[in-house]
């Protein structure tokens, strides 16, 4: 799915979260969005998800203008997006398994395959012994992994990850990055990830958008030397 931002501005009262932002994301790209707190990273993800509308400009996914899109079209797009929210956004009175199950039900995943899909993603994020616990019973890292499992379960075309390593230890952070990298390479899933962690960005040779006070300061394109990135992840994990 192609994502386009065309001269997008987003204001919260007198504060400009995004200024004249233009971006074109090709299907299957892996993009990092970096910047300090309040730079506008999360605003970009919220705009893609149509959680908020731009003050001006256009946000497009494929041929659909999100600002004026019909509700059905927005719902359809959202079903193709896996989101790892910064604050997890798990339903508090449902277990990890139920949280994933609801998400699969929403995207109309075949009923007879839901359980095996839940097993599969829970295993991927290593939460087998936590699957029947409620969000309040999980640690920050476990919540992050539960949110990741939910995002992966729907086999999305786009993954939006808002600081997904923020609450993870070094090992789990690198496992998550490796998982996202594999999904991006094998499934050609577009991944847009916001992060503070420069070591992650440095280790992967991917496109980087640098934001400062809502303005794009840099758009560093990927240099096609994949071997270097793989080597970096392996050495970091060691």
């Amino acid at each position, binding site marked *: 799915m192609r994502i386009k931002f065309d001269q997008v501005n987003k204001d919260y009262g007198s504060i400009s979260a995004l200024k004249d932002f233009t971006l074109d994301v090709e299907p299957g790209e892996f993009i990092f969005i970096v910047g300090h707190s309040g730079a506008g990273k999360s605003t970009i993800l919220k705009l893609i998800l149509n959680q908020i509308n731009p003050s001006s400009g256009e946000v497009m996914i494929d041929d659909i203008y999100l600002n004026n899109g019909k509700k059905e079209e927005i719902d359809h797009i959202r079903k193709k997006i896996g*989101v790892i929210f910064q604050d997890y*956004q798990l339903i508090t*009175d449902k277990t990890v398994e139920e949280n994933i199950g609801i*998400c699969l039900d929403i995207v109309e995943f075949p009923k007879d395959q839901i359980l095996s899909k839940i097993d599969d993603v829970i295993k991927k994020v290593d939460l087998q012994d936590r699957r029947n616990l409620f969000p309040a019973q999980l640690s920050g890292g476990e919540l992050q992994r539960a949110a990741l499992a939910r995002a992966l379960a729907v086999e999305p075309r786009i993954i939006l990850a808002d600081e997904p390593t923020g609450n993870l230890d070094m090992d789990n952070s690198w496992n998550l990055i490796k998982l996202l990298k594999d999904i991006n390479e094998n499934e050609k899933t577009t991944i847009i990830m916001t992060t503070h962690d420069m070591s992650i960005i440095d280790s992967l040779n991917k496109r980087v958008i640098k934001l400062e006070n809502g303005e794009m300061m840099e758009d560093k394109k990927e240099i096609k030397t994949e071997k270097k990135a793989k080597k970096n992840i392996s050495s970091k994990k060691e």
Partner: protein
Amino acid sequence: MTILKTTWHHIRRSPFQSMVAIIAMIACFFAISFYAIISDGLSTVIKYFETKPEVTIFLKDGLDTNAIQTIQKDLASYPNVKETKYISKEKALSIYKEQNKDNPMLTEMVTASILPASFEIIVSDPKVLEQIYQNYSSKTNIVDEVIYQKDVIKSLLEWTEIIKRIGISIALIIGSISFLTVFTIIGMKVTNRKEEIRISRLLGASAFYVKKPFLLEGMIYGVTGALVGSLLSFIIITILRSKINSFFDPIIFITNKPSFYLLVLSSEILLGLILGFVASWIGARRYIKF
């Protein structure tokens, strides 16, 4: 299966709110069932009186056959007259004897000549009775007396009308209260689950998808209320039936036909389903803004 599970989860998470909604629905359908049973009893009473001779015209002695036939034709020409029955002096005597067969003293002295011939008129619309009564009361040359159970029928019609109005008003008031209760409770439940709804919408759930469990919840309240309310009233009516029926004897005021109770039950379940659905639909629509 997921929607049922979610709905059950919603009910279990706030059992007292659910209980209030169900109790309101039970009260509503209890009243409606009672009203349905009483209405049925009243129509049985009216039907009973409709099948009885409602005006009896006693004729003067000495009228010839031509005169009697003329009266019969005239009576039959009134609108809504179902039957005009001529009771001759001899027939009147046999009826009298039948009615007093246990008291020979009363029958021994009576002969056909002292009993008047009469017409019994049965109508389908009681309003025509007044007209016949007025017209024949003035024909003193051929009519001895006109007996019209005017007051009985008049008060019966009046009472039926009053009971119908009271019943409909009570059903409407309780129905509105239960509608508002379900509407408010669903609204509260939507507010309580705002976060869950918001997350589901961000994951791609349609507005209808997030409303579905609430609609089902409203329908469950409606059906449960209809089922419990009507069964409760059926039980009470069954207990009181023999007493009520003996009071109205020989009319069977409280019917014992299972088909009637099945019809009431199924209609109320349908009504409960609609009432619960509409109340929760409006409640959910009002509060789900995203």
